[in-house]
């Protein structure tokens, strides 16, 4: 039965129909063939995510990035980063990974992080001569840290669904997040050497240091506002997106005076279109996940795979395989809801700590956001960089490989995950 969902989707996808429409076409054909559901359920489930408040972080962070770019704030930040990291080969790529780890501490959503970094650092990297595909792949992979390093929407969903302490999950995510950051830096460095990505030739001088610092100083205030604002409870992560946009608006419009009214209106339109493209994928994947849940398809697949052996290592590898495989096609929240209840009891049966397994699952889901063909982070980066899905998919492979290594480390060395939560118990 599952084939009536997957095959029409894949066929539509490969003949060049946009991913969002392909997801919808798959579901429509599935409903038609199975004949037990009214078509109305399609419109209803697809409509729901489009009015989900937490998803609103997407348009706001995209708007913030849009305004930062047009006002020149981004350029000032990049100049500052270049001044320090420029002498390393692929320095800006390293800056991207480090900023990504920092940003992950602000944002709970991979999409929001990817969009924000993509909009700000993406064009800057391109100006420095990095390949579009490499940039798309790098930032899509960096976005994987957002759900792993707290705060995390996926962890909140998982904790609520599976009754696991969200506080403990938040603590447990920090070290795995840093492991991912290190591995991504390593891959970025190797790739930079291979592709001879640039080092900049800015000579060091104290005056130069002062200049770039002063120029970029207002840009530094923005992350501080967001860190203090979100961690200090001034606003929710969603509202944080709007505040970030407001700050960029004030600095660009009133202080630098580099934003024209036209720039501002264009930014609203542009961020509306970019967000709509992303949200339509999220929207169309909702009925897709819904019919799978309705027909208990993921459970059936998982049951079949898990019935194969009782060797714990193999079962854990199988679970990781299932998660990565499903992650290729489904969206993160759907995976939590679909597979959490199926896989967590299996893991508990093997004696895994609930928090440990939760982190394994969150990391696997986060990786899925950067894997083709359905990888939300890639979807965000492809239009931003103006590259194609297939080129970005190819470029992301080395990063995926390193993320996969990180996942294996996290899965097979529980101490790494459980150390921090136990320390702060």
């Amino acid at each position, binding site marked *: 039965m599952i084939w009536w969902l997957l095959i029409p989707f894949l066929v539509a996808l490969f003949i060049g129909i946009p991913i969002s429409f392909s997801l919808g076409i798959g579901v429509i054909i599935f409903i038609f063939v199975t004949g037990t559901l*009214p078509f109305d359920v399609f419109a209803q489930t697809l409509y729901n995510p489009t009015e989900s*408040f937490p998803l609103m972080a997407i348009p706001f962070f995209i708007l913030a990035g849009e305004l930062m770019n047009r006002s020149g704030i981004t350029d000032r930040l990049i100049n500052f980063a270049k001044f320090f990291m420029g002498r390393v080969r692929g320095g800006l790529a390293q800056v991207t990974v480090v900023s990504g780890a920092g940003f992950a501490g602000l944002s709970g959503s991979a999409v929001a992080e990817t969009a924000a970094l993509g909009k700000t650092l993406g064009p800057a990297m391109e100006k420095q001569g990095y390949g579009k595909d490499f940039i798309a792949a790098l930032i899509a992979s960096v976005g994987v840290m957002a759900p792993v390093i707290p705060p995390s929407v996926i962890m909140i969903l998982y*904790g*609520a669904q599976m*009754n696991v302490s969200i*506080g403990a999950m938040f603590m447990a995510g920090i070290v795995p997040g840093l492991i991912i950051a290190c591995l991504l830096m390593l891959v970025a460095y190797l790739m930079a050497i291979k592709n001879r990505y640039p080092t900049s030739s800015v000579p060091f001088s104290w005056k130069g240091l002062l200049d770039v610092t002063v120029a970029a100083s207002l840009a530094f205030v923005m992350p501080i506002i967001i860190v203090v604002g979100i961690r200090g409870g001034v606003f929710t992560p969603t509202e944080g997106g709007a505040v970030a946009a407001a700050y960029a608006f004030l600095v660009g419009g009133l202080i630098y005076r580099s934003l024209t009214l036209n720039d501002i209106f264009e930014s609203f339109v542009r961020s509306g279109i970019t967000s709509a493209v992303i949200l339509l994928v999220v929207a169309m994947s909702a009925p897709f996940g819904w019919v799978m849940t309705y027909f208990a398809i993921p459970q059936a697949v998982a049951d079949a795979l898990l019935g194969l052996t009782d060797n714990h290592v193999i079962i854990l590898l199988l679970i990781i395989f299932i998660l990565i495989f499903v992650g290729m096609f489904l969206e993160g929240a759907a995976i939590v809801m*679909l597979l959490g209840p199926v896989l967590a009891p299996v893991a508990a049966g093997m004696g895994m700590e609930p928090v440990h397994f939760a982190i394994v699952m969150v990391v696997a889901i986060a990786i899925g956001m950067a894997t083709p063909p359905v990888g939300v982070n890639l979807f965000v980066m492809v239009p931003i960089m103006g590259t194609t899905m297939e080129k970005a998919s190819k470029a992301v492979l080395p990063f995926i490989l390193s993320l996969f290594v990180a996942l294996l480390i996290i899965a097979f060395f529980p101490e790494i995950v459980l150390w921090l939560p136990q320390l702060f118990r």
Partner: protein
Amino acid sequence: DDGGQAGEEAGTEQAVELVLSHTAAPGTPIYLTYEKFKEELEERTEGSVTVRIHHSATLAGDTQGIEMLQNGTLDIASAATNNMAPFTDLFLVFDLPYIFEDVYATHKVLNGDIGQEFKEKAEEELGLKLLFFLDPGTQRDVMNSKREVRVPEDLRGLRFRTAESPIEMAYVEALGAVATPITWVEVYSALEQGVVDGLVQQFHWVVTANLHEVIRYVTETGGIHAMHMAFMNKDSFDKLSEAQQQAVLEAAQVAQDYNFEIAPKMADEMKQQMIDEGVQFYTPTEEELAQWREISVSIWDLFTDRIPEDLIERIQEAQR
């Protein structure tokens, strides 16, 4: 030979699978009650009617579930009285703070004529069969992450999460807190990071959403008894044979009785679970409780034009 065994064993009955959706997590009273309903129904029909339960809002939240019932996507769905606001004013009376003395008074009212009346009205107004009521086990209590609260005065300056409902906001403001509308899925992080300081909620949903990790103080004020209700699509019901319909109604009654018996008991377990997590409970004295009650009742005026006046009186009467 091919299939049909199940059908033959149950006589001439046609085998039917009912799809049921609710939002409660495993181990909670509402979850267990639906399991009981399934068990009873399948037993009574000797398997000719089976129930497939989707829990934890994996198929639908409360309001979505009702919509999916109305377009025939689901057969049975659960919704809290306060989540019925978009569809009807019928259940608005449940949102009146302190309309019910305690959970047992609610049970008494709903087990009697008024409960029956709601079932009939629901069918008239919504075109849905109201099968039975489910108690989450307690009324809503005032809870926060900042300080011990004994009287409404202690809430001054605290920000309380509400749904984006003007009535709920008015209630919280009347108590003295600042009403802050926050989407349910963001409540945990909003409490953790201090965007809001508290909320008025039932243990059942606090535990379901892990909020007891971030809540520190509970004041056992009671007040609103947001009940859940099991609704069934009318066509799904009518399609059943008479014997099957009878079995559904019987299983519904058994499930409701079971729920009314276990839910208040399980509330103690949920309370213990919260205490184990470090939450401090405060039981207001009679005088303090009178203060909560007096202030809360002052917002009844906001509702009364949408609620039949005699209904309020009859509900109060039926509790005595």
